[in-house]
């Protein structure tokens, strides 16, 4: 579960300074996938929809449920305000390129190449 929360945090952290993002709005996010890699990519796709379509920046992720094929969580943030938020790098999408979700001695590790 932490892996998915951290992946969400990493995604938005690349795009903007999260210190400037307030926790004013909550949104429920869920995703499915037929394996761990597909699940992670679909989770990130849902978060990118929050950015591109709902125009939100998200900084806090509380996972409610995670299984091999489904994840659900509540993300917290606020609408993009170009007067306060600088988008330093727009992430257009999450790709399958070199995608990895693996267990290591230190815990679960994921590698995703974002298209910018």
């Amino acid at each position, binding site marked *: 579960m932490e892996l998915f929360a951290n992946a969400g945090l990493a995604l938005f952290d690349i795009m903007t300074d999260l210190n400037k993002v307030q926790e004013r709005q909550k949104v429920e996010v869920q995703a499915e996938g*037929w394996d761990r*890699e*597909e699940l992670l*990519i*679909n989770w990130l*796709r849902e978060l990118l*929809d929050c950015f*591109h*379509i709902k125009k939100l920046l998200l900084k806090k992720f509380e996972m409610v449920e995670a299984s091999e094929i489904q994840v659900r969580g509540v993300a917290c943030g606020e609408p*993009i305000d*170009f007067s306060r938020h600088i*988008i*330093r*790098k*727009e992430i*257009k*999408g999450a*790709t*399958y*390129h070199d*995608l990895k979700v693996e267990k290591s001695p230190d815990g679960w590790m994921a590698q995703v*190449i974002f*298209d*910018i």
Partner: protein
Amino acid sequence: MKVPGIIYADEKMIEVIRKDQSLVQVANVAHLPGIVKASLAMPDIHQGYGFPIGGVAGISMEGGIISPGGVGFDINCGVRLLKSNLKREIVQPSIEDLVNVLFLNIPSGVGSHRRDLKLSTQELKKVLVEGARWAVERGLGDKEDLEFTEESGGIKGADPSFVSEKALSRGRDQLGTVGSGNHFIEIGYVEEIYDDRAASILGLSRGQITVLVHTGSRGFGYQVCDDYLKTLSSHVRDIGIELPDRQLACAYIGSEQGEHYFKAMNCAVNFAFANRQIIAHWVRESFEQALGMKRDELGLTMVYDVAHNIAKRERHIIGGREMELMVHRKGATRAFPAGHPAIPRAYSSVGQPVLIPGDMGRCSYVLIGQPQAMAETFGTVCHGAGRVMSRHQAIRTAKGRNIGKELRDKGIIVKAASREGFLEEIPEAYKDVTDVVECVEKAGLARKVAKLRPLGVVKG
């Protein structure tokens, strides 16, 4: 591999090409069902997602596949070239004003869009079917512009019912925007003419001011590609196609899933044609505003508009017989020769113009397609210079330097929506487009007509 991989490059280029995964990707593409002749790569090849950028694959309509990865995320990313009645000496003193006016009038960079172009979903769906014609019919350009655009600016077979709500949402605010990354509007001039007859037919002359517009289908096309990568990624599992790379997700041409992607892709193709049409119209308005000249005096008219990320149904001769193929061009440009029925009648005696933009510090080229391209590469050549540095590497290389001043000292004014976006695009981040074009010409695929030099650039 079902067919060989063929890379067009010289010895110096192949050493650079070996440094990333492009050659592995050329080999992976050669595994695709229905691929004919060869998995091809142009001299500007570099690593992409699934297919390499600069990759070309002709796939049989019978038993072959269509793959979003073979088109790219930025569907119909392409280039439009305008010529003018203006000479460099007249415009150069005002270049800074021109660049500033273009920057104000034409949205570039993340989140920018013009408030006077607001579309309902219904209207957006018309754009997706009609393409550039939608814009022209609303006074955003001239009818003649369509004649000099690939597919007359509106490809048939677009069906918005196969486009997701997400893609429509992303696209609604982005029509008439340049975007970021390597997209740009460039005012330049013709520095050199290599073929007087061809240049005369294309309307190009030494010292003439030109405008290049490089952009595509923005977030709309991106979402279409991503939607179908997701769908087709599980589809290939269902139909038992084994792929060396998930980004090669595909469907059989003519299958329900294949048709859906094709129809959605064509919507994005038309979005991009409309996008470049609208931007070109605003370029004309910006010139009028900045130079205080009337439209007729300026004479900003089309040379051509060409796609470099697209999959098209075309007929080609393979092994002595005519076959219908789905030609995937990802970072590769159509280059049809003289006499081909698909090119503008005005160019029939000389061939289709091929527009090859270089980096913002060097030059760009106009070529014309040759019969050799039809024989060897499904009538295709390169699309640009190709990156040799990642964006991070480019920013590190630019550290401590005043890139804006370096370009200004060369007589080039650049205005960018973001500093990082600007630094990522430093000239050294790219191959020298001259090397790429020389390679294509030596291979007999296309012939140089003119070299263009930049004077002023607007970037996202």
